[in-house]
């Protein structure tokens, strides 16, 4: 199955709910909180609506990969950023900060171009 009316309806709901949610942030106060809640409920409804029709759309050319490995990859990529951030405050020297920034980038790259592709390619359909 391809694009459907339901998809269009749920995306419309998504946009309307986003607008209401943002209006809630803009208005503020009691009315704002009310709008924010209505918007958040609408957003969740649109997402769960999309989830409901997802299974009707037929088989995709993908196999589920190891979720834990994907999350570990994302964690490692994020960890590199944290190393860089705290590295700026560990030492005042330019050289020290430079090295720590490079270490942080290296860790992030490891997560991004080594761990995550390995996670997604582990059960890749093209291998079978």
């Amino acid at each position, binding site marked *: 199955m*391809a694009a459907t009316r339901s998809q269009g309806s749920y995306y419309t709901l998504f946009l309307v709910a986003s607008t209401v949610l943002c209006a809630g942030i803009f208005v503020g106060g009691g009315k704002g909180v009310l709008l924010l809640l209505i918007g958040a409920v609408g957003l969740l409804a649109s997402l769960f609506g999309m989830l409901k029709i997802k299974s009707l759309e037929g088989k995709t050319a993908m196999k589920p990969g190891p979720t834990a490995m994907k999350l570990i990859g994302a964690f490692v990529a994020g960890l590199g950023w944290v190393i860089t951030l705290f590295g700026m405050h560990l030492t005042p020297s330019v050289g020290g900060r*430079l090295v720590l920034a490079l270490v942080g980038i290296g860790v992030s790259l490891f997560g991004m171009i080594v761990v995550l592709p390995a996670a997604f390619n582990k059960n890749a359909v093209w*291998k079978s």
Partner: protein
Amino acid sequence: MKKLIRGSCFILCILSMCLALSTAVRAQAPAAAAAAAAAAPPAAPADAELKGALAKAPSTSDLAKGDPGGAITGTLNDVPIADSKAGPTVTDVGTQVGQNKIAINFVWTLVTGFLVMFMQAGFAMVESGLCRVKNANHTYMMNFFVYTAGLFSYWLIGFAIQMGGAAGNGNLGGLQSLSVEHTTSLFGKTWGLFGGTGFFLSGHTYDVGVMVIFLFQMVFMDTALTIVTGACAERWKFLAFCVSSSIMGAITYPLYANWAWGGGWLSQLGVNNQLGKGYCDFAGSGVVHAVGGMTALAVSLIVGPRIGKFNRDGSSNPIIGHDISAVLIGCFILAFGWFGFNPGSTLGASANGNLRIGTIAVDTMLAGCTGTLGAMLYMWMKNGKVDASMSGNGLLAGLVAITAPSGFVSSVGACIIGVIAGFLVCLSVAFIENVMKVDDPVGAISVHGTCGLWGVLSVGLLADGTSNYGGSWNGVTGSVTGLFYGDPSQLVAQLVGISTLIGFVFTFSFLINLALEFFVGQRVSVATEVAGLDLPEMGQLGYPEFVLKPEPDVLLQAEKGYAVA
């Protein structure tokens, strides 16, 4: 009795005289004031000179004779005068000069913004041309709708997050209504996190200057969003694309853009940590292109490769695009739009060192040129043939790379940056396809991600310290200067920006799109993919009168295999 009457009359006369005198004095007061005013010093010499100049200005009868040389059009006569009786004053002229400066900058920023908007057409042509004909309508439509999806979510909240605390830009009149930046205190310093005004462009942000900066920043945001559509073309479900793009325009892009351009923590690295002039990204190699490239990689990983792209042994098959002419014309449109992207990022043509726009435009041109040379010569030497699509990618790679340093480097620096980007894009495309096994039909991750990161890094190496945009950058006095010109700390600031792009932007985009994979499902079904996305997703073929040539055997076999499985 007579004495009494005479005395009363005398008193009455005296009283009458006093009354008459007081009335006379009261009546004479304005006249006295007028006399005092008349005795005041004459008009300031400058004002008097202006009046003299006004007398010499061409009359309406002079102008009625026509002015073919343009010598008498535009004189003191055209300066609006507050008090016509008093004539022109220095205040009148000063007001007009200020308005002229802002007007020049408004027009400059708007027109360059219009050029950037036109880049959407270039992206659409490049991406669709590199896809198969059965997916042409879908790819064009993604490039078309990303403009709407991004613009709407940016108007709702994205602009407020990015620019809500960006007050203080003198080029556009101060933008004082953008005055709320949410901050946090860490290590004894205050760091900007995200803005808080500008939702719906309402309230105090219903302002002429804010509208100009909104338009300019919006088209930049949209460029970042459209990068993802190329990397995920030919298998991305349209609904997932719509939701993902809306979220990217609302949150992902504005957050990083705030940190770099909206007064956020990256721009404060110079003030808070003495790292050069803080993170410097003149026109967005990082903010626009690397954010788009990192998100493209995240979504491409989740969406997976197209059917038939990789063989069982991991080797890859080329899947040739349907229209190389669209690709190359699209590249030219993009190169044209880049003259809005980079020179427009001064946000003005008048004052504050903005006359550097000529240098910026030439740097942009040269980097595109050497980028093309780098990619074309590399492929020619490697494969013995000139690769047209990779040459186009080389042009774009050079332009992407020069985007961040364009305001800070010389023409020689621009050439070096461009040629390195040209080589880099070829190596990166091969690495992403053959080592990472990620399918990127148009090379968007390499062009925008890899070369965007190179552009950010190059500022820390090659910024020559000659630019002077009002005497400071990111609140730090002086010019942006890279490692090779004496300031190694600038390189560290750039590395922090790169680390944020890889470590934060990529991870954030990945997690959001992983959640969307759960709720929405990112990929079309096998049946849809084999048939081509045009009919199942769009209900219409891109080229309905074309007879489609069968796919190459290797792809047909792969498609049959998936359909059976």
